[in-house]
């Protein structure tokens, strides 16, 4: 919903009431945690989910008049109620919410794939191809170079690294910088219901770059290993496994997509239950097979959209189911943000995040010039590529595990930088969508004026 629409729906009194109610519910939860200090294991997680859901929803309404995306509200709600500020939600609770994340990521990937119309992607293929090449290689090379040149100045622990090891570190940082956030992109597009060249380009880029990034990171890790550890040798074995996994993911996703399309065509009942089965059940199968879940679900969504006439219907169902899940997902991500670490590594992380944003901007301008993009894309095409989230953090965990020598520092720095990008990226993207006029003026169905259709 646009800012104007949001403001139009609720007066100042309405916002004030929401603030009071948010504070009241927060106070109530806080009082209970003080009154009964002993938790009942997973049962308190229920209250935590509830509070994140409520606080995220209310906070998103409160930040909307400022022109900020709902996603920022969800993240803020998570940060404030999380383990580093009010402690309404503790670390254990945040960890136990991983099934919600699994469900959210599967829905996000399904929606992302289902949003990609083959014809539209084909029309923008030139832009997409140039952007993929430039945003991956240019960003990788320039960020690696900048990191290598400046790391010893801003990072004390980098001073003790040998030049080769520092180059390995810089390469890994460069690879990490190439990752984007499909969830943040989808979150913003879902809220704004935006349509136009910028929305289509960003979505297509972010979803397809997932494959490129996974390959690139695997390759960079193979190159960085002998640089960091002189006893290690250059090996590409991991790429073979990766190839199997990628092809397997595409095959499984295609099968899944055909099944979903057939189900929608022939049955179309109880879609909430079907999506839950997909989110939890299929995710478990994908994890067992060690396939890429994001790619699997994205391909499934893409097949439904482009090989059947059920795409729009499917998207509507995902949207109905997903909203509640997304709030918890992003609020949990906010609660998981390590605020003290951000405080400690803040200046260095800020410099690195800023450098990445500038390089992404420059890369966007270069790619647009090469592809001959329209003005809107030339000016704002980079804006949706700043967000980083789960993919970057996941890769930082792998890198930390694979490179124990500096893994801890690398991960801490990655968490701090990703936190900044996670907060700033969505704001930039929404601003760009608003400025280019792609944000939909049509408001979402509202309560109490609309009743949902009866269950099929």
């Amino acid at each position: 919903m646009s800012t104007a629409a949001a403001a139009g729906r609720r007066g100042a009194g309405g916002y004030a009431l929401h603030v009071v109610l948010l504070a009241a519910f927060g106070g109530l939860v806080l009082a209970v945690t003080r009154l009964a200090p002993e938790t009942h294991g997973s049962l308190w997680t229920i209250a935590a989910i509830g509070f994140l859901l409520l606080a995220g929803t209310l906070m998103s309404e409160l930040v909307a008049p400022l022109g900020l995306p709902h996603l920022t509200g969800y993240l803020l709600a998570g940060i404030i109620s999380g383990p580093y500020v009010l402690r309404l939600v503790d670390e254990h609770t945040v960890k136990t919410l991983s099934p919600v994340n699994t469900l959210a990521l599967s829905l996000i990937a399904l929606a992302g794939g289902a949003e990609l119309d083959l014809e539209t992607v084909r029309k923008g293929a030139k832009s997409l191809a140039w952007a993929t090449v430039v945003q991956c290689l240019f960003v990788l090379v320039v960020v690696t170079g900048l990191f290598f040149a400046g790391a010893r100045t801003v990072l004390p622990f980098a001073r003790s690294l040998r030049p080769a090891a520092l180059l390995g570190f810089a390469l890994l940082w460069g690879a990490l910088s190439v990752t984007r956030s499909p969830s943040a992109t989808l979150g913003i597009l879902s809220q704004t219901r935006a349509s136009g060249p910028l929305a289509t380009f960003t979505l297509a880029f972010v979803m397809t770059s997932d494959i490129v990034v996974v390959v690139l990171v695997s390759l960079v890790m193979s190159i960085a290993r002998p640089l960091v550890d002189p006893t290690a040798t250059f090996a590409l074995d991991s790429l073979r496994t990766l190839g199997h996994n990628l092809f397997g993911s595409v095959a499984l996703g295609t099968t899944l997509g055909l099944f979903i399309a057939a189900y929608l065509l022939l049955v179309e009942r109880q879609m909430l239950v079907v999506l839950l089965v997909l989110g939890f059940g299929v995710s478990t199968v994908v994890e067992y097979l060690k396939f890429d879940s994001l790619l699997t679900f994205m391909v499934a969504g893409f097949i439904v959209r482009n090989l059947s006439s059920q795409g729009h219907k499917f998207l509507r169902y995902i949207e109905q189911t997903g909203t509640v899940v997304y709030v918890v997902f992003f609020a949990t991500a906010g609660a998981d943000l390590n605020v003290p670490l951000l405080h400690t590594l803040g200046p260095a992380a800020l410099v690195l995040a800023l450098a990445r944003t500038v390089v992404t901007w420059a890369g966007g301008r270069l790619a647009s010039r090469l592809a001959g993009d329209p003005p809107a894309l030339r000016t704002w095409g980079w804006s949706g590529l700043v967000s980083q989230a789960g993919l970057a953090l996941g890769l930082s965990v792998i890198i930390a595990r694979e490179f124990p020598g500096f893994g801890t520092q690398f991960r801490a720095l990655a968490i701090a930088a990703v936190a900044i990008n996670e907060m700033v990226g969505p704001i930039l993207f929404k601003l760009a969508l608003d400025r280019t006029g792609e944000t939909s003026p049509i408001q979402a169905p509202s309560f109490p004026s609309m009743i949902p259709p009866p269950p099929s």
Partner: protein
Amino acid sequence: MNAVLLLMGLLVLSYLGNLLVARRTSSGAGLPSGVEYAALGFVLGPHVLALFGADSLRAFEPIVQVAFGWLAFARGLDFGFAGDRRVRGGSLALGTLGAVMTAAAVASGTWFVIGWVHAPVTGVDRLLLAGGLGAACSETTRYAVRWVVDRHGARGPLADRMNEIAHADAAFPLIALAVLFALEPTRSIAMPMPLRDGPAATVLLGLVIGTGAALLLRGEMELEDTWAALFGVLLIAVGMATRLGLSTLTVCFFVGLAVSAVSQHRNVLREMVAPTERPVLLPALLLAGARIDFRAIPALAWIAVAAIVARMVAKVVFGWTLAIASSSARKAGPLLGLSLMSSGALSISIGLALALRFPGKIGDTVLAVAAVSATVGEFVGPVRLRRALSGAGEIKDAHAPSEAVA
């Protein structure tokens, strides 16, 4: 069976259950309150086929709590309404009176039998067991009455009255549950709460949260945000009640009641929430059924017989009370009260709440007896109700749909 497989099974069950329910409205298959799902859970559970073990059940405990909390919320939201119509004050009073009479009879009967068979339950435990059985066996499920009325096309003052009574008897057993929880406060709470304050705190917490939710939904919100706010509030209520050792069901019921009382959008909310009841109910009943353990106490059979007989007697006496007030009830015959024998979701959820809070001989006995009582009630209630409505001349062709309810 691991947790993911169990979850998949529950989702499939929810799916199939909905298809069956959709067909049931036209064909009349199955038991009206769906208590067969509890039986299915019992058969699949750790005490019979052991397709899923106690560990899996423990893993799903929070989900069960939320599911039954949601159902209690829906019940609170719908309390005092029968379909679109508000229940008359007289029916509200009669419904509550029936619940009090039945609870008292069941509690007294089982209290006596516990002593008579020398069951190993004394002191507060005996009170908890008898009181728990009274609370669990006092309701009449809404679905059974509505099922008979809809299926046989019953129209008339008695059908209306019975339907309204079945929609108005939930408050007492849930308040009784809050009192039972207060009898043995949780040890985790930092500030000890006197017995008299426990139930009041339970009701107050529900009312405060419900009022907050109603205020929250006062203005216009996006539809998805409304769901998020409703669901968020409910989860907070469930989590807080559990942490404070209060009755989750009671808190959620009063959340629903407060929303219904305060919100100007109560009708819209009811229409939003009502379709969610069945998909939540069936898997929840299955999980509750899986916890049933008929070896909870050696004298369980005696206690079950006592509870069911006491319930029958109380219902018959209540039927006579009804006959004093209504001429159509007099036409239905002396066993009219047995028409209200059906119990179901609320009864089993009270049993489960006690089984989770007082695991072992008290809670497990209440859950087992509640399930048996619900099963017996399903066989007796709808048949007697059909006869009563025929007797009162409110079913035009009593012989047309003649197949047995079960």
